[in-house]
């Protein structure tokens, strides 16, 4: 057991710190469009120096970084308080999925603009009637010559209004069991048949959207991984969903907690034993999250597959982030309940943490079935 980073990992961290130090995009402007444009410009800078997707192979503009180095990248991005690149879904989800299942032509066509942020991607998986039970989705794709005609509705589509492309899963065969009739499409968002309606979330921001798809057309060559193979391709996308990002979130949580402690100190609250107890508790949870995430890295690097700890970090992070925001409200009172205050924002935004990217309930099902080997209840599936 040795928790020190190797010389090359430490050197990579130093290199990143220096780069983030000398590459400061400044304060992110307010407003959705302005902040998005800001993050897009930030991604361009990252891409210029091959930092936009360090875990991508060098041939596609990445650095072929190991999973530990990728974790270090996201930790340092968070530590430097730099924003996530605008095309985070393209970089983390679409890119790796295309690398796994794409034809040479598809790789050639799509990967580079993902990296530069020239083409933004969104994820068209969930539907109003297909959330945790994703495989029951109903959006249909019907063959018409060498094109597919798509009709249906998608929901929770983050960044759709800025996206050129959508990772879309649709049903191409209604006569086979639900997991088998799906196909994964790369759909052009810039067409009549795709209408976007912003969904305002409880914070008042429209981070995500509904997609209304009415006769949208996708050429044959934009099928990814073969007709009828959509479930397998989609699972690859989902498995990438919680990779490096966890380390960015983990560092952000740490920063929030440290800031809360500083704020408690300024108000002279640290001597209150109830406050100290709760801060000690939150510190413990934040450290457990960090250490468990590190253990997960080692397991993947050493054994090639995630261990039991790999399924736990998203659950740990979301729960702790909510507890932290709730405690900030207890501690800071009216300030944290006033719109515009950052803690008020956290109090609202963190409610989404235990839902987005897999609800805690589904994560528990996954742990129960795949890690603990418990029997599955008829009809339910993780």
């Amino acid at each position, binding site marked *: *057991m*040795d*928790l*020190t*980073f*190797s010389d090359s*990992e430490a050197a990579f961290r130093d290199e990143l710190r220096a780069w983030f130090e000398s590459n400061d995009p400044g304060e992110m402007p307010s407003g959705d469009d302005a902040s998005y444009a800001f993050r897009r410009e930030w991604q361009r800078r990252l891409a210029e120096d091959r930092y936009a997707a360090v875990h991508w192979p060098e041939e596609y503009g990445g650095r072929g970084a190991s999973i*530990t180095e990728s974790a270090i990248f996201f930790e340092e991005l968070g530590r430097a308080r730099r924003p996530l690149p605008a095309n985070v879904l393209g970089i983390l989800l679409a890119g790796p999925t295309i690398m796994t299942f794409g034809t040479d032509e598809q790789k050639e066509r799509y990967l580079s603009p993902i990296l530069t942020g020239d083409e933004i991607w969104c994820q068209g998986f969930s539907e109003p009637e297909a959330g945790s039970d994703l495989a029951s989705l109903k959006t249909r794709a019907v063959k018409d010559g060498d094109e597919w005609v798509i009709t249906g509705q998608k929901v929770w589509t983050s960044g759709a209004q800025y996206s050129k492309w959508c990772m879309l899963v649709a049903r191409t065969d209604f006569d086979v069991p639900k997991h088998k009739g799906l196909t994964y499409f790369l759909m052009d968002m810039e067409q009549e048949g795709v209408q976007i309606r912003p969904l305002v979330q409880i914070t008042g921001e429209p981070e995500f959207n509904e997609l209304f798809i009415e006769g949208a057309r996708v050429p044959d060559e934009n099928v990814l991984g073969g007709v009828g193979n959509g479930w397998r391709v989609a699972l690859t996308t989902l498995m990438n969903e919680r990779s490096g990002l966890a380390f960015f979130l983990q560092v952000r949580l740490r920063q929030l907690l*440290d800031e809360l*402690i*500083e704020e408690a*100190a*300024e108000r*002279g609250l*640290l001597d209150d*034993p109830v*406050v*100290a*107890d709760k*801060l*000690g*508790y939150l*510190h*413990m949870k934040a*450290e*457990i999250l960090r*250490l*468990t995430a*590190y*253990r997960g*890295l*080692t*397991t993947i690097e*050493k054994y090639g597959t995630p261990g*039991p*700890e790999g399924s*736990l970090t998203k*659950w*740990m992070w979301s729960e702790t982030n909510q507890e932290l925001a709730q405690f900030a409200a207890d501690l800071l009172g009216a300030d944290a309940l006033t719109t515009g205050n950052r803690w008020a924002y956290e109090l609202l935004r963190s409610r989404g943490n235990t839902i987005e990217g897999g609800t805690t*309930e589904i*994560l*528990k*099902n996954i*742990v*129960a*079935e795949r*890690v*603990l*080997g*418990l*029997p*599955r*209840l008829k009809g*339910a599936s993780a």
Partner: protein
Amino acid sequence: MNFDFTEDQHEIKKTARDLLGSRSSFAKVREAAEGKAYDDGLWKELVELGWPGIAIAEEHGGGGLGAVELAILSEELGYALAASPFLSTVTAAEAIGAAGTPEQQAAWLPGLASGEITGALGTAGGLVGDAEAAAVIVLVGEDGVARLLPRAEADVTPVDSIDPTRRAARVSGEGEPLGGESTAGVDRATIVVAAELVGVSQRALEMTLAYVKERKQFDTPVGAYQAVSHKCAQMLKDTEGARSATYFAAWAADAEPERLPEASSLAKAASSDGARDVTASAIQAHGGIGFTWEADVHWLYKRAQVDAALLGGSGTHRARLARLLAARLAPAAA
């Protein structure tokens, strides 16, 4: 970074699991608990293997290995719930090894390493395991100073704790302070207790999984119901979280001693909360049978409760974490 055991460390863990699996079955644990006596044969075997001295320096006759190896053994003895003076002896040795004067070390470590004598460690006012039979007792006062009491100078009153798998006592007496930094010694001992709690949690989880896969109601294994399976998932989360903190602390104890105070409190707070919750859930998931003397889950719950209080409960350690944090982040206010 390698947040996993080395091959040698894996081997130690496996050897311990196999040996204790055959020598310290629950039948044996029950016999020791109900008869209020340890299995001398088991202790002799552990001594022959050099386990009590595994982390004691070679110059004192020990194995010279580190806190990680010691944590591995402690975890496995916790997993087996072995009825033996191991934890008491090695925690005393850790404290004396880290904070004793050269004379104190020379006086006690060779005997503890060879198994010729046993030791005990605890807090004044708390329950001290195995104090009656110990040749030397390390008693931590309310001021945090650890004092060394040869058995003859200690006032030892045996008590029946709720955990009959371990002999307990209340201890008082003057003794002499450990010569060095008490905190380091106590922190190292605390990590060994945390490791035992991780082992207890792991065992409770495994017993529960076996039971809920087998037990059927409404023609369905109860482990298929989410009310039960989600509880099991929570048990895994608590166990693995405590494991992360405890392995980190054991590693830091030798590799980055400046982080020892925080790491030790982190491990103890996480493992105490974790083991109490996990063993309580184990009883609940076993239903009525889990509440009987006949089923074995209660031994785990009882060990978890007494260990959780040993060297400070999670509340004590959370308060310490808050103090350490405040000193780092807001030194002016602290």
